[in-house]
C-alpha cells in the first residue's frame, strides 16, 4: 500500500489518455483527430525517456520508428504465405520491430553515446539518412520500391478485420504504447536508474566521480526509448498505414516534432510529453482548418514564444508553481 502514492503522477497522464479515448469513442468525427494526438503524445513520451532524462538530443530518433515499421512490414509480407500463422504475424511483427530497433540502438549507442552535447547530436544526425541509403543502396527489404501490404493484411485477416485493424485497433495499440511508455518513465524516475540519469543530466563528470556508471544508464535509457519508437513505428506507421517507403519513414521532421513536443511540455517530466503532444497537435490541427497553408507561419513564432517564456516547458512551470502543495504529488 505504501507503494501506491509513488504512482500518483500516473493519474493525470492516464486520465488524459482516458478522456481522449472517451472523446474519440463518443464524439462523431473525433476518432482520427484523437489518434493523431495520441501519436504525438506517444512519440513525445517515448522520446522523453532518453532526451528528457539524460539531456542528450538524438537527431536520428526517427530511424528507430523507421526500423520498427520495417519489422512489422517484413513480418506481414514475408510470413503471409504461411497461412497457419494467421494473426500471429502481427505479434511476430511487434517482436521483430522491438528486436530491430533494439539492435539499431545498440549499434548507434555503442558509438554515439561515447560523445557528449553537440558532438552526440551531430553524430546522430546521419543515422536516419544513413539507414535509409543503406536500404536503398544495398537494395535490402525491397530497396527504394518499399512495400505495400494492404492486400496481404486482407488475405490474412479478412477484409473487415484488416480494415478494423487499420482504422481502430492500430490506434488503440498506440494508446497502449503511450501508457506503457509513461509507466516505464515513472518506474525509471522512481528507481536507481532515474536518480543516476538525473545526476548525469545535471553534471555528467560529477556523476562519474560519484561512481555512477553513466554509460550503462545512458544505454538503458537509449534502448528503452528506441524500443518504444520501434513499437510506435510498427503500429502507427505499419498497421495504420499498410505501406513503407524509405523516404517517408526516415524523414527527419518527425525527430524535430518529438523535440518540440518534449521541450514544449517539459523535458524530463512525466506529464510534459502529454501536454506538449496535445498543445502541438491541437494547434496544428485547428490552424490547418482555419488557416490552411498559413498555419506554420503562425505556429513557429508561437512555439518560440512558449519556449522563451517557459524554458522548463509548460509542466516544468506548473511543477514550480505547485511545489509544496497537494498537487505536487501528481505533477511530476
Amino acid at each position, binding site marked *: 500500500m505504501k507503494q501506491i502514492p509513488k504512482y500518483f503522477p500516473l493519474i493525470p497522464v492516464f486520465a488524459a489518455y482516458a478522456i481522449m479515448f472517451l472523446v474519440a469513442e463518443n464524439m*462523431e*468525427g*473525433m*476518432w*482520427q*483527430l484523437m*489518434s*493523431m494526438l495520441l*501519436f*504525438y503524445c506517444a512519440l513525445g513520451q517515448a522520446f522523453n525517456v532518453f532526451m528528457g532524462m539524460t539531456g542528450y538530443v538524438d537527431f536520428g530518433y526517427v530511424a528507430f520508428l523507421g526500423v520498427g515499421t520495417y519489422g512489422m512490414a517484413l513480418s506481414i509480407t514475408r510470413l503471409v504465405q504461411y497461412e497457419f500463422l494467421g494473426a500471429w504475424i502481427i505479434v511476430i511483427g511487434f517482436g521483430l520491430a522491438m528486436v530491430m530497433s533494439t539492435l539499431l540502438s545498440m549499434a548507434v549507442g555503442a558509438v554515439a553515446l561515447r560523445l557528449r552535447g553537440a558532438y552526440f547530436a551531430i553524430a546522430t544526425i546521419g543515422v536516419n539518412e544513413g539507414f535509409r*541509403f543503406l536500404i*536503398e*543502396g544495398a*537494395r535490402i527489404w525491397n*530497396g*527504394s*520500391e*518499399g512495400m*505495400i501490404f*494492404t*492486400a496481404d493484411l*486482407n488475405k490474412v485477416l479478412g*477484409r473487415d478485420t484488416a*480494415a*478494423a485493424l*487499420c*482504422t481502430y485497433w492500430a490506434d488503440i495499440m498506440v494508446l497502449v504504447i503511450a501508457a506503457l511508455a509513461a509507466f516505464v518513465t515513472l518506474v525509471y524516475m522512481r528507481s536507481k536508474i532515474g536518480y543516476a540519469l538525473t545526476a548525469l543530466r545535471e553534471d555528467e563528470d560529477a556523476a562519474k566521480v560519484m561512481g555512477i556508471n553513466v554509460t550503462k544508464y545512458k544505454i538503458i535509457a537509449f534502448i528503452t526509448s528506441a524500443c518504444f519508437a520501434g513499437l510506435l513505428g510498427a503500429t*502507427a*506507421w505499419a498497421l*495504420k*498505414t*499498410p*505501406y513503407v*517507403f524509405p523516404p*517517408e519513414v526516415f524523414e527527419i521532421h518527425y525527430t524535430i516534432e518529438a523535440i518540440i513536443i518534449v521541450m514544449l511540455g517539459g523535458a524530463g517530466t512525466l506529464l510534459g510529453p502529454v501536454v506538449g503532444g496535445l498543445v502541438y497537435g491541437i494547434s*496544428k*490541427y485547428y490552424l*490547418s*482548418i482555419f488557416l*490552411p*497553408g498559413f*498555419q*506554420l507561419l503562425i505556429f513557429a513564432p508561437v512555439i518560440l514564444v512558449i519556449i522563451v517564456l517557459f524554458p522548463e516547458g509548460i509542466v516544468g512551470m506548473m511543477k514550480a508553481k505547485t511545489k509544496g502543495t497537494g498537487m505536487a504529488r501528481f505533477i511530476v
Partner: protein
Amino acid sequence: MKRSLVGGFIVFMFLLAGISFAGAAPDKIVIGHPACLSGKFAKAGEQAVGGIKACVEWVNTTYGGVEIGGKKVPLDYKYYDCESKKEAVTSLIGRLVSVDKVNVVFAPYSSGLTLRGAPVTESRQMLYMDHGGASNEIFQQGFRYVVQTIGPATSYHEGTLDMIHKIAPDDKKVALAYEDSEFAKMVMLGAKEHAKKLGFEVVFERTYPKGVTDLTPLLSALKASKPDFVLGGGHFEDGQLFNRQMADLDINTNGLSLIAAATLPAFYKALTTMAEGVMGPSHWEYGVKYSAEEAKAAGLPWIGPSQEEFMALFKKHTSEDMLPDYHAAEAGAQVLAYVLGVQKANAIDSTKVRDALGSLKFMSFYGGWDVDDSGLQVGHTMVDVQWQDGKRVIVWPKAAQTGKVCYPMPTFQEKAKGVKAVPK
C-alpha cells in the same frame, strides 16, 4: 379496425417521406480534400487546389451545376492543409467525412499519402479519388472506393514508345538508365513491358542511386550497347546531369526521353542547346490540343472548360503569374469525372457513383478518362514534349500535339554548333 387503419396510414406516410427523402436532390454536393499546401508537396498541392477551384467554378457557373434528380445542384469545395504529412491526412479525412459531411474525398498528393487515407475512406465506404498517386500498386490492394485520374506510373513511356514505333520502325534498340527510386522503377517497368510488346529490344538496363554526381561509368557502358534511343531519368538534378554527360561523352542516339526533368523550363535554361531535341513525358502540358472536336473524332463525350477557360479560371483562383501544370489539370479533370459520375448514377451515394465511374469514358482539356475494374486509370494518354528551338512542343499523341517531332534529334556536336531540333 379503425386503429389499424390509422396505423397503416402513418406507416405509409413514413414510407412515402422516406422515399421522397431518398430521392430528393441535395442542396449542394461537397468535395473534401486534405490538400498539401505546405510541406514537401506544397507546390503540387497549390496547383491541385487551384485546378479544383477552377473546375468547381466552371461546373457551378458555365455548366450550371450537377444534374441530379432533375435538379441542378452546385458543388462546394472544402479543403484543409495536411502539411504533406500522413498523420494529418487521416485526421483531416475523419473531419471531412464526419463533421463536414462531404460526399467525396479527393486524395492528397503522392502515392504514400494517398495510401494513408485509403483505409479510412474504405472503412466509411466513401468514394476516394486519386489525382496524385501514380503507383499501380495502390490498385492491387483490393480497395473498392479508390478511383484514379492521374495515369499510372507504368504508362509514362507508352506514348514515347508508340511514337517511335510509328515514325521510325527500324529503330529497335532501346536503353533504359534510371534513378533507383520507387517512382522511376515503376515507370521503367511499364516501359520495358510496353517495349517488348511493340517488338523493341532492351539492349541496356541499369539504375543509378539518388543524388548521383557522376554518371560517366554508366553512360560509357550504355554507349557500348549502341542503342537507337534512350529512356531514362528520375528527377530534375539527375536528368540534367544525364543530358550534360551524354554530351560530354558524345553519346549520340536518335532519341532521348527523360522523366521529370525534360518537361521543366529550367531544364532548357540550364542546358541551352544541349537540350535541343530532348523529350519527356508529362500528364498534361499547357498548349495541348484536346478539344470538343478531338473528342468527337475519338468518339468520346466532351465535358469541361476549354484550355483557355481553364487557364483563366485557374489564374483567378491562384495568382496572375502562376501557370497551371499537370497537377492542376489532373485535379481539375477529377472534378469533371466526379460530376459525370454523379449524373450517370443520378445519386450521390458513393457506391453508386463508384459503379458509374467504372463505366464512364470521356474527354476533357486534360485528355481521355476511363478506369478499369480496380479503379486504375487506363484512358489517359501521357503527352510527350520535345525541346525545339528553345520551345516546348507537344509531339505526341496526335490529339494533343502542337507540332511534329524532330527525330532523329541532332547530334551533340551539331547542337554545339548551334543546330536546332527542327522537324523535317
